[in-house]
């Protein structure tokens, strides 16, 4: 029977040729086999070498058209996906874009996705505390003047705005009249604010009626509490911890709230992830979001295809869409771009400036009927004299 240290040293020696995951599994199995079958030193080495051979055979051949294969692998399940989005009616759940529309949103790198959602986790010591979760929800959810007022109207005679505050709602949100006045003073054009009982009277100086109306709307929708862009936040219990889901996304601000676990909290808005956490995080977010969407539809695609897509989209340091304003539009071949979208534009522009197409890509060669520079076409033969 071989020494465990011998196994370790042999694995170390050949380790470079295998991946970490394989090495870990190989080590485990070697230990077990060693116990069970009393392996000799030679046998251990033989097993490792077999493993290396098997691994190398399974590697993708250089020149393989992985892009085309990835496209097909994602496109085919695409035909089986729903074109509808499910609507979660009511208070119990947050509406999220699903299925094909979501995939399209991701691949198009839309700057304003349909349903941005944040998943906020709490710090370790607060995770199982429902009250703490509710506190944080209050911090996050936006409250406008309108939502804590009983009534609001424009006083045309005095050219002012009168707001009747609802003390019950104010208390629930933890706001005092002083807080509200302070926030309102930040609005432009506010000249004076008087409060009597629960009535706030705001004057905006010498303005026309139309301007007063606009001012009225601005006052009503002025945000008192909560982070920008968040419409509402819900608490869900998952396993033993409380997780907050928000409709609307503002990761940067959410991180600042004490009690929020920065290590796990995340958003489904890919561009926001790039802005706040960097391009590598954005790449992972693309993979995670696409996988989630496929999984939800009951489809399975090897993660490598998705990884290839995500890598391509994030190659230049920022997220680029696959479409004509991104990757496809940046191809150097005129024929390739023309065959994708807006055909005449590209051809006309190229003709005007006498551009040259070096015919070195896949699309162009398919168009002119030549072997493509991939796979077999990757090599040229030269005759020996």
């Amino acid at each position: 029977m071989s020494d465990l240290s011998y196994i370790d040293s042999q694995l170390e020696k050949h380790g470079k040729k295998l991946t970490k995951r394989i090495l870990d599994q190989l080590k485990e199995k070697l230990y077990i086999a060693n116990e069970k079958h009393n392996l000799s030193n030679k046998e251990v080495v033989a097993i490792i070498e077999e493993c290396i051979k098997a691994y190398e055979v399974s590697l993708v051949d250089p020149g393989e058209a992985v892009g085309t294969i990835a496209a097909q692998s994602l496109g085919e399940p695409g035909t089986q996906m729903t074109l509808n989005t499910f609507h979660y009616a009511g208070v119990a759940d947050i509406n999220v874009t699903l299925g094909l529309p979501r995939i399209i949103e991701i691949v198009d790198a839309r700057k304003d996705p349909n349903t941005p959602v944040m998943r906020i986790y709490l710090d370790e010591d607060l995770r199982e505390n429902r009250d703490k979760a509710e506190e944080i929800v209050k911090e996050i959810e936006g409250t406008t003047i309108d939502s804590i007022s009983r009534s609001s109207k424009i006083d045309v005679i005095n050219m002012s705005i009168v707001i009747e505050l609802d003390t019950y709602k104010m208390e629930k949100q933890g706001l005092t009249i002083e807080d509200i006045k302070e926030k309102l003073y930040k609005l432009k054009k506010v000249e004076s604010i008087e409060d009597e009982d629960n009535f706030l009277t705001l004057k905006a100086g010498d303005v026309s009626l139309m301007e007063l109306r606009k001012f009225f709307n601005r006052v009503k929708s002025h945000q008192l509490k909560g982070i920008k862009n968040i419409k509402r936040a819900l608490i869900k219990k998952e396993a033993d911890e409380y997780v907050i889901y928000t409709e609307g996304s503002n990761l940067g601000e959410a991180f600042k709230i004490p009690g929020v676990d920065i290590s796990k909290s995340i958003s489904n808005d890919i561009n926001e992830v790039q802005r706040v956490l960097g391009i590598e995080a954005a790449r992972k977010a693309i993979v995670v979001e696409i996988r989630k969407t496929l999984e939800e539809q009951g489809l399975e695609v090897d993660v490598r295809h998705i990884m290839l897509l995500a890598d391509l989209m994030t190659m230049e340091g920022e997220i680029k869409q696959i479409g004509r304003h991104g990757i496809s539009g940046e191809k150097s071949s005129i024929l390739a771009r023309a065959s994708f979208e807006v055909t005449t534009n590209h051809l006309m522009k190229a003709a005007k400036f006498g551009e040259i197409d070096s015919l070195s890509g896949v699309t162009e060669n398919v168009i002119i009927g030549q072997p493509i520079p991939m796979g077999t076409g990757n090599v040229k033969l030269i005759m020996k004299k």
Partner: protein
Amino acid sequence: MTKKKINILDNEFVPEHTILTEEESNEILQKFNVTFDRLPLILETDPVVKIIGAKSGDIIKIVRSDSPAGKSVFYRYVIGEDTKQGLEEDSVDEIIDEEPGEE
């Protein structure tokens, strides 16, 4: 209220980023047989780049732990705003048409 310390590097989605020394950078360029302009890019204004203090021209080594292989290494070349614009200047200058709207 004390300001909370926010370190985005703690987030699960952010892998390990390290700046390579000049020697290590040259090694990598040699290993892959490329010049620096063929490497994937990362912006100087990237949140992680700002934290680790990398500058335009550095090469960053990124170790991702979410691939099927267990761990995978990726390299990115840091570019600043000015270099980025240089790359975009490959397009031809617009010549003013005498008769617009021909397309």
